[in-house]
Each structure stands twice: as structure tokens, then as C-alpha cells.
């Protein structure tokens, strides 16, 4: 183990400020008098004052204290942290992509519309749906839109009793949150002993009040909902819709499609499955696809192509549309990257992505099952899909080292931690998603690291508890941070005075 993250004692940019310095030069002097009453003008603006090289050095150092997929293994479950091809960045940065305005005359943005049209067609094929709106900015945003579409659908049937959305207890937190945001009451159904939706419980949960079921398949345990045909039947028979949470799409590309499983609404995470970088939290994109029956409710505008005229256009003339869900047409810069990625992969490439990603997860599952301290809580008989959720409960029981400590200690091995304590139905959960981007050697290194940590938990527990030590900083007081939140330099100075 020889990992060491950069460790700068880097002050806040405000503390580096020296009056009079500036990192920007005006292209010209303002020449007009601006006719604004004095009381509307600003008196004081305390932004930092630095020259360009100082700014560059500061943020370069900060970047060195940050871990990305390009730094190493990032098995964060349900986040699909795969490699992001560099050429996609280059293309999105072209002036012909980055310097076009959403209100330009249509004939001057034909390329942008064509790219969106083509991307929509590709996504519709991958998911097996009729049409896709690219507008939502992120996964949770897509879920929210899906819930608005659900409401519009039932409303169009004059069915206004449906005020419940069903969510499995293993669902991503965004699912119930998005349903609630759209005004729905959330009904949670438990998982069965096999880690799948409990059909009996689902049957008991559906009623004339059910608007939809939100489901991710493979689910958050990395297991395929093999009863999906029955699940879909139960929900549809009750008059509800099926929403597919696309977070785990990387596990089934080219093998099966949400549409083939009878889902009505699907969302995608372009920043997961389609390899656009996550940028430390965003931007992403969360397009939403629907079957024919729901098409008319999609947000405006959609891109249409007139073959005769050879022209693309934005169609706002959609009287049943739910309207707008974001200021413009979606995160276009992300679309360019996702479209380039789709072309780089093609159908066979995507199929191979899923082969490799699923194999990598199964490889970890089988190897780690042989390591003492970690176990599977649900079905270990069959294969997993793109991810696997282990429980560190045996380790905790024996050594009082929790999943939390294991995760922190992993950072010292130069690897990112898995998602932990999620899904909530697995105690001491370690949710591991290796993606297709990792080599066998890297996976072996990961399993070895977990084995070493399990051994250390017995031989040198303090070492595990005091981890990480190879990162830019040691363990933080997160409790204090939330008890007395200091959310800005202004607040920081105020608290320092007190």
C-alpha cells in the first residue's frame, strides 16, 4: 500500500486576497453614463482579489485533493462510475456546441436539433420506448417529470382518485422524494427473502388509488426482478403505471429493455450509463422516455424532423403537454457527450459493456464471499447484475468494526469507498459497483484490500478506526458541522468572532 493523496494546507480563497489584485482585464472601458439612481447601486462587494496565476494555483491544489475516476477505482454502488472518454469533452467544448443560444433562429441551430433528435432515437431504442424528452437535468428531475406525466395520464382518464405511488423498500431515496414532490402519498412495499419485490405484499398494496409503481431493475441489491412480468401485470391490472428508474441500466444494455418488461415511463442517467462525467455532483442529464399512450404529455418542446424539407424544428404545438420542466431544452453539453459515447460503443459495444460490468460484479461477489467478515443478506445462489451489496455485519459482530470504518480504511488503499448503509434493508451495507472500466487486477486488489481490512479489524483495530490517514485530511467532525452549520465565509467570520 503506497497511496498518498496531495495534502496542501490551502487557505480559503478569501484568505489569499490582497487589495488591488485582479485576474481579469476588461476588453474596453464603459463609455456611456448609466442612468441609475444612487440608492440602487452597490456600495460594498467583498469578493476575493487575486491575480490569475494565484487563482490557478489555488484551484489546481484543490483539484489535487480530490479523487475522481481518473484517479482510481470508484466502486460507488448505483452511481456507475465508469471511464469518461476524453474525446466527448473535446466535442462538447467546440464553439459550434458551446456558443449557440437557445433562442437562435432555427436555421442557425440545425446541428444542435439534429444531434438531439438522433440522441432521442438512440435512447428510445435502448429502452424500448416510443419517445424521449431530453429536458430533465438529472435522475431525480427525470423521476419528478415521470410523476407529473403519471398525474397528467390519470387526469386525462378523469381518474382523480389515484393519489398513491408504490415504492419498494430497496428503492433509491430519490424515488419516494420525487413522488412526494409531485404530491403523491408514498406506499412502501417490502422485499422478500430473495431480495426482490414481495409479490404478495404488492398485490395487497395496489388499489384504485395506485397511480404508479416506481421500480429499478436490476434493483439496488444488484438483483434482477425476475418476477417482473407478474409485477407489471399486478400494477397494470390495478390501473397503475410502471415507472422504470434508469439508475441501473448498465446492468441490462442490449439484454432486455424496460419497454420489453412493460414499463410505461423510463428515465435515463446520461451521467451514469452513457458515461458523461459527474463533475463532483453534476451536471448530469435525466431524459424521460414514454410509451405511445403517454407521448402527448411530454414536456414541450420536442424536436421534430421534416423529411421533405430536410429541416429539424422545435415543436411547441402540443396541447396536452405538461409544459416546461427546465428553462430551456435540457443539458445540451451533456447530450453531445452522451451521443458521442453511443457512437463510440454502437450496439455491440453496449452489449459488451454490460457483459463486462456484470462479470466484474459477479467476480467480486464470488471472490468476496470467500473472505471472512462479509456476507450476502439476500439471494446468493444466482448471479448478480452490475452491482453487489455485501453486509459487513459478521465483521461488526466479531470486531466492532462497522461498514463505515471499512469504507474509510479503503480510502487509504487509493480506492474510493463503495456506497454504504444503502440500501437500508441491508445492515452494514457495502454496495459495490465496479463497472466495465476496471481490470481484473484492479478487482483483485480491491478484494485483497477488503480482506486486509478484515484482518486488521482483528489485529490492529485502532488502525482501521483512525483511517483514513493517506487522504488530504483525516476524519471530520460531521456532527458538529450540522449542529452549527457554517455555510459561507461570511458565516465563518461571524462564528470566529463569537
Amino acid at each position, binding site marked *: 500500500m503506497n497511496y498518498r493523496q496531495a495534502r496542501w494546507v490551502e487557505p480559503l480563497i478569501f484568505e489569499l486576497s490582497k487589495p488591488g489584485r485582479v485576474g481579469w482585464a476588461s476588453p474596453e472601458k464603459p463609455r456611456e453614463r448609466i442612468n441609475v439612481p444612487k440608492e440602487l447601486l452597490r456600495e460594498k462587494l467583498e469578493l476575493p482579489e487575486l491575480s490569475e496565476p494565484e487563482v490557478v494555483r489555488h484551484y489546481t491544489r*484543490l483539484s489535487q485533493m480530490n479523487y475522481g475516476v481518473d484517479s482510481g477505482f470508484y466502486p460507488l454502488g448505483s452511481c456507475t462510475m465508469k471511464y469518461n472518454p476524453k474525446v466527448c469533452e473535446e466535442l462538447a467544448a467546440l464553439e459550434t456546441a458551446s456558443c449557440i443560444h437557445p433562442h437562435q433562429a432555427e436555421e442557425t441551430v440545425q446541428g444542435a436539433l439534429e444531434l438531439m433528435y438522433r440522441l432521442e432515437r438512440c435512447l428510445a431504442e435502448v429502452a424500448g420506448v416510443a419517445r424521449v424528452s431530453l429536458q430533465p437535468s438529472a435522475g431525480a428531475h427525470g423521476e419528478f417529470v415521470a410523476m407529473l406525466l403519471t398525474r397528467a395520464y390519470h387526469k386525462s382518464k378523469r381518474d382523480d382518485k389515484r393519489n398513491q405511488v408504490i415504492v419498494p423498500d430497496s428503492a433509491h431515496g430519490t424515488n419516494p422524494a420525487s413522488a412526494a414532490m409531485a404530491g403523491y402519498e408514498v406506499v412502501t412495499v417490502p422485499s422478500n427473502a430473495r431480495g426482490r419485490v414481495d409479490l404478495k405484499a404488492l398485490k395487497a398494496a395496489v388499489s384504485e388509488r395506485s397511480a404508479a409503481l416506481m421500480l429499478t431493475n436490476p434493483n439496488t441489491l444488484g438483483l434482477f426482478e425476475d418476477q417482473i412480468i407478474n409485477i407489471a401485470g399486478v400494477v397494470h391490472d390495478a390501473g397503475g403505471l410502471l415507472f422504470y428508474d434508469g439508475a441501473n441500466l448498465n446492468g441490462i444494455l442490449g439484454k432486455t429493455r424496460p419497454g420489453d418488461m412493460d414499463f410505461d415511463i423510463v428515465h435515463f442517467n446520461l451521467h451514469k450509463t452513457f458515461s458523461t462525467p459527474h463533475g463532483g455532483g453534476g451536471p448530469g442529464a435525466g431524459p424521460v422516455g414514454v410509451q405511445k399512450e403517454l407521448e402527448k404529455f411530454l414536456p414541450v418542446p420536442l424536436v421534430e424532423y421534416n423529411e421533405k424539407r430536410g429541416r429539424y424544428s422545435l415543436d411547441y404545438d402540443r396541447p396536452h403537454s405538461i409544459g416546461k420542466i427546465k428553462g430551456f431544452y435540457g443539458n445540451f453539453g451533456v447530450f453531445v457527450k452522451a451521443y458521442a459515447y453511443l457512437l463510440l460503443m454502437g450496439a455491440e459495444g453496449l452489449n459488451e459493456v454490460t457483459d463486462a460490468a456484470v462479470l466484474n460484479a459477479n467476480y467480486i461477489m464470488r471472490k468476496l464471499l470467500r473472505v471472512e467478515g462479509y456476507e450476502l443478506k439476500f439471494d446468493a445462489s444466482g448471479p448478480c447484475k452490475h452491482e453487489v451489496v455485501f453486509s459487513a455485519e459478521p465483521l461488526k459482530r466479531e470486531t466492532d468494526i462497522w461498514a463505515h470504518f471499512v469504507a474509510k480504511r479503503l480510502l487509504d488503499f487509493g480506492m474510493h469507498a463503495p456506497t454504504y448503509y444503502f440500501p437500508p434493508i441491508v445492515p452494514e451495507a457495502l454496495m459495490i459497483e465496479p463497472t466495465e472500466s476496471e481490470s481484473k487486477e484492479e478487482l483483485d486488489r480491491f478484494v485483497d484490500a477488503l480482506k486486509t481490512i478484515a484482518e486488521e479489524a482483528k489485529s490492529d483495530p485502532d488502525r482501521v478506526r483512525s483511517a483514513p490517514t493517506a487522504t488530504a485530511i483525516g476524519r471530520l467532525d460531521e456532527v458538529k458541522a450540522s449542529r452549527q452549520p457554517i455555510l459561507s465565509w461570511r458565516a465563518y467570520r461571524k462564528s470566529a468572532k463569537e
Partner: protein
Amino acid sequence: MGHPYIPNTREIREQMLREIGVASIDELFADIPHQIRLKRKLKLPPAMSELEVKRHVQAILAKNKPFTQMLSFLGGGVWPHHVPAHVRSLVQRSEFLTSYTPYQPEASQGMLQALFEYQSMIAELVGLEVANSSMYDWATALGEAALMCARVTGRQKFIVPKLISKDRLSVLRNYASGPGLEVVEVGYDRRTGQLDLRQLRAELGGDVAGVYIENPSYLGFLETQGDEIAAAAHKTGALFVVGVNPISLGLFKAPGAYGADIVVGEGQPLGNPVSFGGPSLGIFACRDELKLMRQLPGRLIGATTTLDDKARGYCMVLQTREQHIRRERATSSICTNEALCAVAAAIYLASLGPRGLCNLAELCASNASYAMKKLNTIKGLRSPIFDAPHFNEFTLNCDDTRVLSIQKLNAGLLKRGIQGGKPLREEFPELGKTALLCTTELHSREDIDRLASALKELLGERR
């Protein structure tokens, strides 16, 4: 041959399968019922090499005409500015670019500190103590602000000015529809564009959760009655929400200084490209009051110390508001946000500093001022239509010409290599043949003169 992005070749995969005792890859998919298996290949364009993809995508995008290659006067929610080279090069550093949400603060101090600095600079700019680390964009930030006002006050009505972008209003209505909030539009003074205070006061009552204004307004003029609107809202226990173009705050009074409780806005002009309207950056800030902070949507980065209290560090805070903990009781479902755009904004603001931002704001306003003066001298044109101070956007009306519509006028301009302003007829029929134009530091006087002579020529032709 191997795949450029998949390190495990077929041979290695075979070896791995043997090691874990699985006969074939297909066995790993045996749990997918046969009926739903895709029995054909996906119908996608054939895979291409990097070189081919580059040529193919470049060729599609070449059909666009970027505003760097033609004179354009479009704004209206996203604004073209120069993005300094170092801003782009820093946000492209792959440690930032390829990281996920900073769930492990010890390994993500860089992103956390950068976002804390972003929050700090936004807080300073808008004159409040608290800012979150980003929303999707201005429109969704407004939607979330309305929901937050309703949660804080327990009331169901949200007041907005009639003169806001209809797209933004549509997004707001979608957000408001969940809890069934009523969105009420308040009119404006036909001469000055200012909010109709009498109507506002009549609408205000014990049922109003929040009052929203934009400053500068959607149509470019300043709302000069900020103090009075704030006082009226607060008197009835409503929160006061202000929407901003952050560049304008280099010059104008911060909303916090005239009573704003919540500030939202579009952070794109702070070092992010226009990019056909996205990614953009939703600004969201509020007063330093626990009652408000606990109802904030989105991620918050806070300062803290190491457990041994020896060093300062940063981590995500108040996560119990968020979806991954609170689930259906979360303040919002937002998870992925626009973090990298926020980092760009931090770098941009740190580079410009107070003087740079002030100069830039002045230059943008000065160009608009020059343009209005110049266009107003053309017979039949009126600019702006409202008698009020303006920032960098303004209206242009051609009711007194024989031009049939702004669309027609723009078509003529486009033939002369100029993209005119945004037609406003659909949004505000009562404003007649009016367009919304924008100038920034990208425009020179000569550019504005060119617009003026093209308009003169076009109007002359029709006479």
C-alpha cells in the same frame, strides 16, 4: 482485439469466469426471463473509432452558427459572455471532472472547499449568509423557492410579476402543482414596467407564502420598489424572493440589502458557456436563520474541523433534509446538481474580484445604454418601451413601422448576418411588436452601430 474502454479482454473474461465457476457470460443473465430477453441486436448506428466519431459529430455541429461567428443580441435567461481560458482549463481537471458527489469528505476536500467558496461568493454577491451548492437552473430554483416558502409559512399562495419569462412560469407552475400551490400574477405599470403595488397589496393576506420579483426584470429594467415590496410582503408574514442575473450585482444593490429572504438566479454567465441553454447553474441563497436553512433544498457544504480539532475541513451538512436520508419527507428530491458549473462560477468570481465584476457589469450596461440611445433615434422604433433604469437587456418596439412582426424583422437581420432579439409577442401580446435584446462585453460599439444601420436599411426598404 480488446476494446479501448474495457480492459478485460475476452481471454481475461474467460479466465475470470473459470475462477468463479461460471460456464459462460450468458449464465450471468439466466435470471432474465426468456419472454423479455431482447432477441436481436439494438438498432443503433454502428460503432466508430474515436477519429470517425470526432468527424461525424463535428460535421453535425458544423450546421450550427455560433454567436462567435455572427452578431447576436440574444439574452433572456442565459447570456453570452467570454469564458476565461483558465476557468475552462481548471474545471476540466479530471480530479474535479470525474468525481462523484463528495460523499467521502476525506478524499474529496478539493471539491468540497471549491463548493464552499462558491457558496461564500454567492452569499456575498446576493447579500445573504447562506447559499446552497447549486440547483439545476434558474427556473427550477424558482420552483423550489416557491415550495420552500410554502413549507416555511404553511401557506399556499405564491405571487409573481406578470412580466416574467413564460417558460420560467411554466416550470414554476409544474413545481407548484405537487402541493397544489396557487400561483398569482401581479400586473405592472404600463409606463414604467414596475410592479403594481396596489394590486400586490390587494393580493397580500394571511394566505400568501411568498412574493417573487426579478431584478433586473426579465425585460431588462430594474425594479426600483424593492424596499416597498419587501415591506409589504413581510407585513403579512410572506417571504420575499428575488431572482437575479448575478453579473448585475457587480453594480447594483444586493437583494439581501433590500429585504430578500431568498435569492434565486441563473449562474450560467459566471464562467459557464451558453451551450444551447444547458448545463446551467441554479443559484439558491437564503437568510442565516435555522427555520429557513432546515427547509433549504439541495446540497449544502459546511466548514468544520477534523475530529481531533486540529485542522479545518469541509463536508456536506444538514443531510437529514435530503432524499437519501429523509426519503418522502425530504425538502426536495434533487441529488445530482450542477456542481462543476458552481466550481466554474467560483473560479470566475475569484478571478474578476470586486473591481472586475463591477467593470464588467458597467460595460454590459453601458453597451445596452448606447444601444437603446442609438436604436431610439431610428424612425418608428422605440427602445426601451419602459421608462425605467436598465441593466444589459432592453426592449425594442416597432409598432410604428410597417414591419409585420419581429420575426419578419429578424429574418431580414439574419440575411445581414445578425441575430436579432427575442420576439415577445407570444409571451406578452399586449406589448405589441416588441423584442428583447441583450448586450454584454462581447459587443463593441461598432457591433451596435451595425445593428442600427441594418435596422435602418430594413425599415427604409419597406417605406
